[in-house]
C-alpha cells in the first residue's frame, strides 16, 4: 500500500526518532510512505480566525500535492495532523476560504479538500488493523506498564478531528495492547502539557506536566508514550527524569523486533 507522507519541520530535526522509527516500522509492515517532494512547514498551529488565509496556504499546498499523487496523506506529528486536518476541513466546508485560497494559489485543478488525511495511528488501526499488527509483533512488550499521553491536538475539537472519543480515547491503549504491553488508563492523558507557552512561562508548563506525571504514576504507569514532539519536550524537560517518555513509533519498532534485526538505531 502506498501513502503520501508529510513529516513536518520537527521530524527532520529534533524529533528524528519519531520519523525514523515510524518509517522503518511502516516498511516492515509492508506500507510505503512516500515523502511529499518540496513540502513546507504547516505552521504548527491552526489559524483559528476565519479571515486568516495566507497562514493556511502551506498546509493547502501539501494537501494538494497528496491529491495530485492520488494517495491519502499520512502524518505523524500531532501538530501537523491537527493543522492539515482542520485546514482540509475549511477547504471542504468554508466557501469563502476555499475561494480565496484557490484564487491565490491558482492550481491547475482547484482544491476543495479531496485529500484524506490520516494519522499514523489511524493507519495502524484502520488500514492494517490492530489484530494484524499483533500478529506482526515479534517481541511482545510483556509486563511493561505504559501510559498513553494523547495531549490536545489529536483529539480536539473532536467535531473536526474525528480521531477518537475526546474524553475517553482508547486508540493508543489499543495500540499498546497490540504490542503486548499493558496500557495504563489515567485521567490526565488528554489534558494539555503546556504546549508552546513553555517559551513564555516555564512555570506554567511545569505545573501542567507535574499534574500529568503524578496522575499517570498514581495509576501505575512506568513509562509514557506520545506522538507529539512538543508534548515530548515538555514531558521530558519539566520532570526529574524518573518517568521515561518515548515516541509511539519507537515502541512499535521495538515490538516488531527491528532493534535486533540489524537495522540502525540512530539516524
Amino acid at each position, binding site marked *: 500500500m502506498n501513502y503520501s507522507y508529510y513529516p513536518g519541520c520537527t521530524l527532520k530535526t529534533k*524529533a528524528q526518532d519519531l520519523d525514523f522509527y515510524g518509517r522503518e516500522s511502516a516498511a516492515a509492515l509492508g506500507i510505503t510512505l512516500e515523502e511529499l517532494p518540496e513540502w513546507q*512547514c504547516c505552521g*504548527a*498551529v491552526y489559524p*483559528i480566525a*476565519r479571515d486568516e488565509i495566507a497562514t493556511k496556504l502551506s498546509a493547502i499546498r501539501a494537501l494538494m500535492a497528496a491529491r495530485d499523487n492520488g494517495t491519502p496523506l499520512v502524518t505523524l506529528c500531532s501538530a501537523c495532523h491537527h493543522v492539515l486536518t482542520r485546514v482540509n476541513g475549511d477547504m471542504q466546508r468554508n466557501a469563502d476560504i476555499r475561494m480565496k485560497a484557490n484564487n491565490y494559489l491558482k492550481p491547475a485543478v482547484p482544491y476543495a479538500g479531496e485529500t484524506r488525511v490520516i494519522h499514523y495511528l489511524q493507519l495502524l488501526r484502520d488500514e492494517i488493523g490492530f489484530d494484524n499488527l499483533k500478529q506482526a509483533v515479534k517481541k511482545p512488550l510483556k509486563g511493561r506498564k505504559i501510559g498513553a499521553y494523547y495531549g490536545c491536538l489529536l483529539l*480536539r475539537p473532536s467535531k473536526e478531528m474525528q480521531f477518537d472519543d475526546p474524553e475517553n480515547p482508547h486508540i493508543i491503549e489499543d495500540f499498546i495492547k497490540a504490542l503486548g504491553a499493558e496500557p495504563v488508563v489515567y485521567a490526565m492523558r488528554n489534558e494539555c502539557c503546556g504546549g508552546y507557552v*513553555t517559551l513564555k*512561562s516555564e512555570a506554567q508548563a511545569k505545573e501542567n506536566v507535574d499534574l500529568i506525571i503524578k496522575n499517570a504514576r498514581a495509576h501505575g504507569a512506568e513509562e509514557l508514550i506520545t506522538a507529539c514532539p512538543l508534548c515530548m519536550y515538555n514531558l521530558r524537560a519539566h520532570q526529574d527524569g524518573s518517568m521515561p517518555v518515548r515516541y509511539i513509533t519507537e515502541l512499535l519498532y521495538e515490538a516488531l523486533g527491528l532493534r535486533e534485526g540489524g537495522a540502525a538505531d540512530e539516524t
Partner: protein
Amino acid sequence: MKLDEKEIAGIIKEISGSDVKKCMKCGKCSATCPAYGEMKFHPHQFVTMVARGKIDELLKDETVTRCLSCFACVERCPRGVEPANVVAAVRVLAEREQGGSNFVPDEVPALIIADKEIPQQALVSAFRRYRK
C-alpha cells in the same frame, strides 16, 4: 479611522465564528481551563465581554498569550460557544495592531541557546501565536 468597542466586538464575533449569545454562564469553560490561574480574564469572561461589546480591557491584557489553545473549553462547552475561538480572535486583533506583539524574533536565539532540546514546533508556534 478608529472603530469603537462595539464595532470591534462585532469583528471578533465574525472572525471567531462564535455565537456568544448562546452562553448560559455555567462556567464549565473556565473550570476546565489549564491556564485559568495565569490569565487575568477567563474564558467565560471573554465570551460575556464580547457579547456586551465591552472589550477595551481584553485587547489591552497581555495575559491573553497564556491561552494554550488546547481546546478543552471548546470541547466541553455544553452550548457549543467555542470560547477558545473568541480568545483567539481577541488575540489576533491585538497582534495586528502595530507593536501589539509581545514576542520579538530577537528573543529566539537566546531561547535556543538556553535549551538545545526546544523543538522547532515550539518556535514556529511561538511566531504564529505571539507575533504577526
